[in-house]
Each structure stands twice: as structure tokens, then as C-alpha cells.
């Protein structure tokens, strides 16, 4: 009870908390499977209610906004799917729906940013103090996708409880993965998911354990090094690089750890979530990187923004323009700040260069392919690290400052501390580049709804089971304090 009150006071129920692991999750699972004996609808309602409870911890004041958003989008969806409207009316309804969603997102996420820039340009004194509701970017995007698909005639009518669960489903609600209704709702409708499957629960636990370990043991451990570059003291050349690289790995292990935990939790309920990461730092090009990093966001931006803008169908020049617009808006989606715009712009430029190289660059002989791959991997990684400096910095000036230190090898500290920190960084780099990722370890196949086949077929040694149990134990033992996930703030 004390824990619950603490959490209510301090905000957010975290996956990496005792409250979640030892109370909320077991109760949610038990209720879901118990109600599964009663019928097919009751567990869905239970899970939706449990998700609202999950969200309301620390965010209770935003629950009405979430519920209103669901009701609004469901109504718009109903008009598009069930009512026989004329094409022009359908378009008007879609426009109203998307505009409504974007308006709410704009007010809560961007009004303050707009006011600050307006004040800077016109010397006015508007003050906007609106707190950002957690998860608003994620649940707004999932619902816009639903409306667009409903308009395109790709959606059958869904029952309200299933739709509400699709939006609120707690494993993804706060920081994704961004779900697609066509992927999720049919799974919620299946009777089989309401019966406990020990194999899926075990695989879910193992995937959750890997994610928890990434968060509490890897991401949180390297976090103090980030301040070497982004802290109050002036960094030397090596400190700036250590800090920037530390953030590069912290962000990856934090966010991919969160995504693993979401996938693992969902799997315990028998629901397969889409993958969000596929060893992004192993990418040999920026195009490849975006197929591996925050994959559900990339797919969303591609399907609902880039293609809607015309994609590559209107000539090469417009393709680059569309790419830049998509990445700029993708950057802005992460937060209302010029640093995110700069980060998006940088990746837009990277992608344009990459596509131009593919179109106009020389064709390498197959013999040179391995070498080119290594060069591509290093170049891509460095480009990504430089972009992360903008992503992490408090403002553009700070980003330039850190980058200027990273480009000034005349000022090197390299003391005992820096040597130890460098060993840390190398360890993380080895993990990111050479270790198999979670889906490879577990044989997770979202499309085919398969996981842990080797485990089921006894092709894995008991050692695997004990090693992953140790990962879970270390993950739980690593829980020390209220450590939020970086992507919660988006």
C-alpha cells in the first residue's frame, strides 16, 4: 500500500519497479485468465480497465483526456466504417478526425514551444504552461492510423472494448511500440489468447527479463558517463566522445529494453507485439538504420506520412523533399524543441545522401563488399552518434559546443577515470555490435506468431534456462530507484 501511494505521488508505474513486477502484472494476468473461463469479452474489458489503472498511476488527471480521445476516434471511425457517406463527406469526417487529434496533440505538446518562438520573434510575453500527458504522441499516432485506414476502406468494424484495449493496452501505452489495429484487434478477438499458455508465459518472462536487464543493469549503469559531455563542466576531446557514446548506448539499451519488456509482458497475455529494434548499430547504411531503429515509428512515418506526401512516385527531387519533410516531422514528434528538429533534419540529409549514393554512386565489385560493409557500418554509426548529440543536448548551442569539443583533439584528459570509462564504452559497443539481439535469442517471429521453438523442442540446454533466470534475477536486483525510461518524455 505504501508502495502504491508512493507511486501515485511520484508518478508513473514503471515496468522496472517492484510494484509493477510483483503486484500489478500478476494481478492483471490472474484476472485476465480467470475471466477467460467466463467468456471472450470479459478478459478484454478487464485488460482495458487494468490498462487505465496502469495509466492513472501518476497520470490520473489525464485519464479523461485519454478516454475522450478514444471516444472521439471511435465515433469518427464508426462514421467512416458503418455509415454510407458520400466521398466528400467521408473526406470531411476524416479531416475533422485527424485535425481533432492533431489539435489536441498540438495544444498539449507544442503550444509552449510555439509561444516561446512567437515571443522571441515578436517580443511578446505569452506564457503557456501545459504539462505533457504521458503517451499522448503514441496513442494519437495509433488512432490517426486507424482513421486513415478506415477512410481507405481497410478496416472492418471493431467492438468498442476491443478498440479501447487496442489504444490503452498497457504494455505499449506509454512508449510504444506503435501498434497497428489490424495486427492487434484480431489477436484480442481470439479465444485462444484468454487461456494461459505456459510456453508463451515462459518466453514472455525471458524476453521481459532481457529487457529489464538492459534497462537496470546496462542503460542505468552507463548513464552517469553521459554527463561527461552534457554536464556542467567543460569536456575535453575524449570526455566529449565518451559522453556522446555513452548516450548512444544508454538510449539504445534503455529504449530497446523497454520495447523488449513490452513485448515480453504482452506475450504473457498471448498477444504478439511488433518488433521495435533489430540491432540498429549493426546497420551498414542510414536506410538500413531506420529499418532497425524504432521500427514501428519508421513504418508509421513511411505509411502515413511519406507515402501520403507522394513518396517516391513523383520524381526524384520530390522524393528527397518528402524524405526531408518526413524526417523533420519525425524529429518534431519526439519533442517540441529545435534540437529535435535539427536531429530530424540531420537524419533527413543523411537519408537523401544515402539514396543519392545508391542511385548515382559507383557500383562496387562483390569482392569489395565486405570492406564496404564495414566502412558503411562505421560511417553510419558515427553519423548516428553526431545526430544523437542534438537529440540529447538542452539546446542547439549546447549541441554545437559538445560537437566542437569532439572535434578538438588538442585538448585530451585521458586520466585514470577516462581509461576506465573507455573500457565501459568498449564493453557496450561489443554488446551492441556482436551480441545477438533479443528476437534472435528467443526466435521471436511476430509475423508467424512463433517464439521459443527451440526451447519447446528441447533443443536448448537447461543452461539457457538458468542463464536467462540469472538475467531476470540481476534485472530485478538492479532495480534501485525511480528510473524512468527516456522515451516516456516523448
Amino acid at each position, binding site marked *: 500500500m505504501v508502495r502504491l501511494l508512493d507511486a501515485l505521488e511520484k508518478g508513473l508505474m514503471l515496468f522496472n519497479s517492484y510494484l509493477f513486477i510483483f503486484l500489478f502484472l500478476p494481478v492483471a494476468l490472474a484476472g485476465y485468465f480467470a475471466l477467460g473461463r467466463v467468456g471472450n469479452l470479459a478478459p478484454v474489458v478487464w485488460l482495458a480497465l487494468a490498462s487505465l489503472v496502469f495509466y492513472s498511476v501518476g497520470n490520473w488527471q489525464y485519464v479523461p483526456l485519454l478516454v475522450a480521445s478514444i471516444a472521439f476516434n471511435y465515433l469518427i471511425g464508426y462514421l467512416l466504417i458503418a455509415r454510407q457517406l458520400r466521398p466528400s463527406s467521408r473526406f470531411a469526417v476524416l479531416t475533422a478526425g485527424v485535425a481533432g487529434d492533431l489539435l489536441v496533440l498540438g495544444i498539449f505538446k507544442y503550444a509552449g514551444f510555439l509561444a516561446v518562438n512567437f515571443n522571441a520573434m515578436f517580443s511578446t510575453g505569452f506564457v503557456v504552461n501545459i504539462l505533457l500527458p504521458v503517451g499522448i504522441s503514441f496513442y494519437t499516432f495509433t488512432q490517426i492510423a486507424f482513421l486513415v485506414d478506415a477512410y481507405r476502406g481497410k478496416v472492418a468494424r471493431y467492438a468498442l472494448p476491443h478498440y479501447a484495449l487496442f489504444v490503452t493496452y498497457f504494455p505499449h501505452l506509454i512508449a510504444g511500440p506503435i501498434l497497428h489495429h489490424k495486427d492487434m484487434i484480431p489477436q484480442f478477438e481470439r479465444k485462444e489468447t484468454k487461456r494461459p499458455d505456459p510456453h508463451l508465459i515462459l518466453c514472455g518472462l525471458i524476453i521481459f527479463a532481457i529487457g529489464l536487464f538492459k534497462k537496470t543493469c546496462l542503460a542505468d549503469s552507463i548513464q552517469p558517463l553521459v554527463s561527461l559531455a552534457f554536464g556542467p563542466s567543460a569536456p575535453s576531446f575524449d570526455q566529449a566522445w565518451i559522453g556522446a557514446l555513452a548516450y548512444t548506448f544508454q538510449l539504445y539499451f534503455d529504449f530497446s529494453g523497454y520495447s523488449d519488456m513490452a513485448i515480453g509482458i504482452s506475450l504473457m497475455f498471448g498477444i504478439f507485439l511488433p518488433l521495435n529494434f533489430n540491432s540498429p548499430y549493426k546497420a551498414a547504411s542510414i536506410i538500413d538504420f531506420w529499418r532497425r531503429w524504432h521500427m514501428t515509428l519508421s513504418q508509421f512515418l513511411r505509411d502515413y506520412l511519406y507515402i501520403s506526401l507522394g513518396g517516391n512516385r513523383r520524381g526524384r527531387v520530390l522524393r528527397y523533399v518528402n524524405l526531408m519533410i518526413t524526417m523533420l516531422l519525425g524529429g518534431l514528434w519526439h519533442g517540441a524543441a529545435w534540437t529535435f528538429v535539427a536531429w530530424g533534419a540531420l537524419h533527413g540529409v543523411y537519408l537523401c545522401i544515402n539514396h543519392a549514393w545508391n542511385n548515382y554512386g559507383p557500383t562496387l565489385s562483390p569482392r569489395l563488399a565486405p570492406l564496404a560493409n564495414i566502412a558503411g557500418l562505421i560511417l553510419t554509426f558515427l553519423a548516428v552518434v553526431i545526430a544523437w548529440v542534438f537529440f540529447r543536448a538542452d539546446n542547439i548551442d549546447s549541441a554545437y559546443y559538445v560537437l566542437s569539443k569532439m572535434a578538438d583533439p588538442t585538448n585530451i584528459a585521458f586520466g585514470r577515470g577516462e581509461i576506465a570509462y573507455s573500457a565501459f564504452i568498449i564493453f557496450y559497443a561489443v554488446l551492441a555490435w556482436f551480441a545477438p539481439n533479443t528476437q534472435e535469442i528467443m526466435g521471436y517471429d511476430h509475423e508467424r506468431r512463433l517464439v521459443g521453438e527451440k526451447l519447446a523442442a528441447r533443443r536448448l540446454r537447461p543452461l539457457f534456462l538458468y542463464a536467462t*533466470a540469472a538475467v531476470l534475477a540481476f534485472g530485478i536486483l538492479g532495480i534501485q530507484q525511480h528510473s524512468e525510461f527516456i522515451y516516456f518524455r516523448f
Partner: protein
Amino acid sequence: MRLASRHLVQFLGAAVAIMLMAVALNFVVDPLQLFRPARFYHPMYSNDSRMQNAGLIRSQDFDTVFMGTSLAIHFRQSDIDRLVGGHSLKLAMSGSTSHEQSFVLAAALERHPKRVIWQIDDWIFRAAPDVDSNPFLPANLYRRNARGLGEYLFSGAMARESLWMLARSVKPFEKTVARLTTGVLFKFPIADADDINILAPSFDVAGFYNARKSMAAFVRIIDPVRSAYLAEGYDYEAMVRIFESDAIGLIEKNPDVKFDIYFPPYSILQFVAMRDASPATLKVVYDFTAYAFPRLTKFPNVSLHDFREAKEITHDLGNYGDVIHHSPAIDLKVLSLISERKYVVDPKAPLASLERLKAQIEVYRMSQ
């Protein structure tokens, strides 16, 4: 299905077993020496005083407690013992508030020391979260309740330190492990409790504490862009309320303990900065002193030392790294002055030192 269920049970059983092994390791090694003093391995200590103090209070023998902020953090216990007498335990915490200090002192007073030497200033009585809302102070560890001990025993970070200490106690590994114990990878790098938060021998004292640095700090804090920070935390009503509960409350509860309370020798520049850039803050300082000194000197078990008027220290800017933090040489001087009782506030004239300080501040000119 049956195989999967068996795997599930094995998996959960193994996870629980591993966690219990970590708990057992933490209990046996007990890096903070919360349950018992270290016997079969060499104890190690951390510079994270908010955490380490919880263990020191339990593991060390002492009859004198030394408390304070960053102004008291570099003192050596052996110097305190030598110059003031007794057998001391330093529990100073950088940036600490009176809530933290009073809470930690209360825990230490459960061990019935005879004396408390307490460095206080106005700023520790600023409004601050209570200790249970303070993420940096493991309050439940001091209380030794189930939650505090549970978090200690179930800590993976603590288990890592336990293993490290064990490795260090094995002869063939000792040197290698000691060399790797830098405080970066392992958080308990100090082999002697007397060395906790002491400036390293290699520290450039002259380069850090000098008139150039204190003047640079002065210029920085009176800059109109930053001068508002001088007033931060100075709310007279709140300070008096917090002083009453944290300081007076603790003294009243411990009439048998001797309290040597001292106001540290800030450089004169701190008050001159207030005089020139934030006069309202200086008035709060005066008013607070006018309230606190008569209150403190009424207690027969309190000796109050006001080093703010110690001109031979405060006017020599070479003693400072900024406008308030003094050098290790002044640490020793402070201890000697406590022993000599040179700047003890007279209970019959509790505001005399304040009047002398006011006069110094008024006449001080930067050309000096």
C-alpha cells in the same frame, strides 16, 4: 504443455534462488557493516556519505559526532580527535539540509555519544523535501526497517560490491583488485574510514584555494544575471520554523549531549556580495542570527562559536576556493579555535558577534 510448465517452474525457481544467493552474499559480507563490523575481510568505504553514514553509525566506535555540509566534508576524524579531543565520527554531507543533518544526527545519537560538533549556517535551514522524499538519502536504511534492509539486501549493486570486497580479501587477488578499485567501477574504494571524503594527496591545494579563485567567484555571483541566486532559500519565516524543528528540537531531546555548534568562517566576500547585490538577503541573515543566537545560547549544553567574525581567516582571500569554501588549513584552524573557545558567543551578549560582523561588512571595500 507439461514440459513448458516444468520449464516455467525451473525458470522462476532459479531466478528466486539466484536472488536469494545475492541476498545471502550481501548479508554475509555486509558492505556497509550494518549488521556487524567487518571481520573476515578488510572493510571498504564509499565517499557517498548519505549512504555510507548509515553503516558508519553502526560499525564505528565514537563518542563525538561531527556534522556539517561541504564546508565540513574534508575534515579528518584523526584531526578532530587530536585537536578537540574525544573519539569522533564524521557524518558531514555535501549540500545537506537541516532535515538531513538532524535525521542522521538523531540516528547517531541512538548510540549515545557525549558530544556533537555541528557546523551550521543559515542556508541549511532552507525549505527542502523531507527525508522520505529525498532520493539521495536512504532514510529507511538509517531506520533499519524492513523496507530499508530489504532494499539493501536485494541490491545487485551492493552484491557486486560484496563480491569485490571478497575478491580483495583473497591474497593473490588483493593487489590487482586494489588497483582496479578507482571509485569508477566500484563504489567503495576507501580502505580507511579516516580517509572518507578527504582531499587526495595529489590534490593541488594551492591551485584550488587562492585569492584569484575567490575573487572570480565573487564576480560571478554579483553578476546581475546570477545575483538572484544569492536570495535562493532565504525565507526568514521558513528558516525560523525549520530551525526550531530540526536544530532546537534535536537539542531539546538530548539534554545530556554537549553540542558545539559553529557558524563557519565564510569569506567576507559572501556577505559583501549580499550587501552589494542582494541587501534583502543580508537582512535575512542578520535577522536569522538575531533569532537563532539567543535561542541556542539559552541551552546549558550548547556552546555556540561564530567564526564569521574571525577576521584573520575571512579577510584572507587566499584561504578560499570560492566565496565560502575554505582550505584544509582552515579546517585545522577551526578545530583549534573550537578547542580554544576563542569565538564562543557569550550567552549574556548573544548578538555581540553579529554586531562585530555587521561592522566588518559595512566597512569592507574591494580595494582591501
